């Protein structure tokens, strides 16, 4: 079922829910008063209960089911009013938390299924370039040779001798056009960080420390991709969605909050 975008707006939901609440509260012309001890179930109320039953069950209730539903409605109404009379709703952390999370949820669900247009995503990228600053370095492609030594001193000594031979290792001696994500997985975070700080060239450099020991490195090339909308589109869409969820919660809150005057003694 595809619905127009306005149906996904939390503000519309609030408005609709408000209207429903208003209608419900003013049904029959007399707003129910929690402090009143009269519960009247007339034709209108019965119809409402039946409707609600039908909505959830997909068929009309039988007479017996309707009677049962009315009894349950009355029972709940009695206990609900008594609870209000006793002030159970006030200062109850669970009631508060429950209501708050319900409000938040109604604002965020709309964004979870929203489909942003390309313009929206391009705008998001333009507004949040910092989110993708690391993306380029993570996706940089590098080619290098490396020799492993178990101590820093041995590595330095080998470097001064022209770095001909390292110790036996199952690590690859040459890595060709590998993205930094893979380098990080194979050589570890420490080595990857060290490699980022090197400039490409034909000389042996280092040593760089890793969990395996000390590496002399000849970084022959590093290609850093231009930040590119097409390759980032997936991440941008996901980040946009996360940001939307947060923002909608915040916006819904701000809208509601604007109706309040808040006095804080500081």
């Amino acid at each position, binding site marked *: 079922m595809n619905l127009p975008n306005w149906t996904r707006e939390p503000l519309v939901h609030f408005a609709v829910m408000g209207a429903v609440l208003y209608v419900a509260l003013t049904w029959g012309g007399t707003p129910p008063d929690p402090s009143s001890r009269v519960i009247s179930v007339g034709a209108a109320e019965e119809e409402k209960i039946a409707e609600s039953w039908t909505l959830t069950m997909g068929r009309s209730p039988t007479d017996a089911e309707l009677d049962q539903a009315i009894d349950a409605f009355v029972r709940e109404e009695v206990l609900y009013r008594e609870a209000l009379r006793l002030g159970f709703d006030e200062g109850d952390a669970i009631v508060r938390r429950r209501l708050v999370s319900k409000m938040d949820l109604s604002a965020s669900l709309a964004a979870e299924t929203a489909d942003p247009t390309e313009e929206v995503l391009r705008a998001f990228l333009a507004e949040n370039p910092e989110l993708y600053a690391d993306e380029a370095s993570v996706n940089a492609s590098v080619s290098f040779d490396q020799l492993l030594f178990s101590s820093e001193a041995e590595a330095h000594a080998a470097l001064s001798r022209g770095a001909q031979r390292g110790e036996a290792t199952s*690590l690859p001696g040459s890595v060709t056009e590998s993205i930094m994500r893979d380098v990080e997985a194979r050589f570890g975070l420490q080595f990857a960080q060290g490699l980022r700080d090197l400039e490409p060239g034909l000389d042996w450099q280092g040593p760089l420390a890793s969990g395996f020991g000390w590496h002399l490195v000849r970084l022959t090339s590093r290609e850093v991709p231009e930040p590119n909308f097409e390759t980032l589109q997936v991440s941008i869409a996901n980040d946009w969605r996360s940001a939307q969820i947060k923002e909608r919660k915040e916006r819904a809150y701000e809208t509601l909050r604007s109706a309040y005057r808040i006095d804080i003694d500081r």
Partner: protein
Amino acid sequence: MRKAWAAIACASILAIGVSACSDGESETSAEQAGDGTDTIELAEFPDRPYWGDTHLHTDNSVDAFGFGTRLGPEEALRFARGEEVTATTGAPTQLSRPLDFLVIADHSDALGATRRLYDAPRWYVNWVIGDETVLRWYDMMHESPEQSTRAIGELISAAAEDRVPEAMADPESAAEATKDIWNTQLSILDRYNEPGVFTALAGYEWTAMPNGNNLHRVVMFRDGSDKTRQTVPFPGLQTTAPQLWEYMKGYEEETGGRVLAIPHNPNLSNGLMFQMTMEDGSPMTPEYAALRAWAEPVIEATQIKGDSETHPYLSPNDEMASFGEKGWDFGNLSLSEKTDPSMYAGSYARSALLRGLTLEQQMGVNPYAFGMIGSTDSHTSLATGDEDNFWGKHTGNEQSYTERAMQGQNLGTREGRFGWHYLAGGYAAAWAKGNTRAEIFDAFARREVYATTGPRMTVRVFGGFGFTAADWDGNWVREGYTRGVPMGGELEDQGDAPSFLISAMKDPDGANLDRVQVIKGWLDASGVMQEQVYDVVWSDMDTRGRSGGRVAPVGDTVNRDDATYTNDIGAAELRTTWTDPDYRQGQRAFYYVRVLEIPTPRWTLFDAVRFGVTLSEEAMADAVAQERAYTSPIWLKTQS
């Protein structure tokens, strides 16, 4: 009552907003939505292990939500990819290194049901569902986190004893109600699935547990949503494993897709996971064995709820066999039935691999020729496997519950299991030629995968005939693949002892290695199952000799006061060529490799230091451990 759950879903969705009723049709690119074939350039041979968790629960799992988790699939995927998310209990959290793949495996039974139940109006639960027990659980869920945990404990016990209220157990209405969640989830998975970067696989957990005996499987799909949308998760309550396998066959025939199942926690099955017979006690048929072997190429050998490699009772000569057994080996999942040691042989991987050899000798088919992986089974949406970043089995023992290590963790109802019995969780390593759904899945299917208890050590094994030390000097990976088989493969007995190229590199950001062992299981001349652990290479071999056939312990650098260790002992890399010294022609055998790290702090020691919690003597004795990896075996088959 049959439609009650479907109705709850719609009632609560209507209450929340119409948009959620959309069918979740994917708007993602074809590359992301498919199985990843032809999307990236593949390596000639698998060139590195890809790291993942195949067993993560989100708030769509009936128990996870009840335990308090409020993070869904979206947050789960972001977290696994390495991004920071805010845990349910409020603190920001992140993996130190991203994972490469993730299977979200929510329970198929009552998928999303507790979330829907929780969000339903009370009047609805009261007079539409009209079940006293469900209403009581509803009230408990709203009362407090502790009561909610208790309610879910009762629900799990009820499921274990097959007395879940009809309103929650009916497969038909459950399927209707969960289709919507499943489709939404598939769309989210496609959005986060990025060939070459991160693989998001569809799956769920099939949660059968007759009488509380754990027979759970994680079901994992190779395909994108074009195919997975054509199915719905298969219910675990009141169904059997052979029915699950038929469902899987049906899925493949209908869609042309691929699916496999991964049994987990056989250690809580009281011997039922790997029986010598069919489930009803009758002799096993070759058809059953073949179907099982097809459906279940890999098992989960280690996770938060204990380790299932082997048990000291089964392997008395294996001094490393007791890892992850405390708290888990005296009863089944729900603790409704105690475990008798006679049940162990059907509950652990090594004995099951041995049983497989026997059954193969009898029937010609091996039902238990499986590889091994680790995973978390975390119920927090957070796929954490590291000891210094343990977010708990479920939200009721996230880090904000600082006393969690010493608290009872028996789901609120029973005695016997405590927080410190939990392991921090394992990970799965897959030797694949690239990071796509198809490549990762195929690595599982050919068993070229291994288990770790959390650290990311790189372990490579090739089996063949005539490997020598000289092979290390050349391109040994190419030699391994062309002259032998990798882990998970099979060799045919040709009259010569098999030899193995074995390489283990430490987790580059973790602890050094203590030793590498080969575990051999075989049938002797009279058909009796035998096992032997060989230390094949270890650190400081020239100074650490053997005495009484055993290698001296590596030592222990862990400082109990501040939960630190040093890499002054152990080795960064261990490798060797090993030839079976006890080979006999015509023997059926398997060989797998176990790699041990030097001792490091467990999560309990980090908790003790960070939160100032005092561990009991027993928990303190268990607060340091040697983490490990188990590879899939290589089988030596007799000539056919």
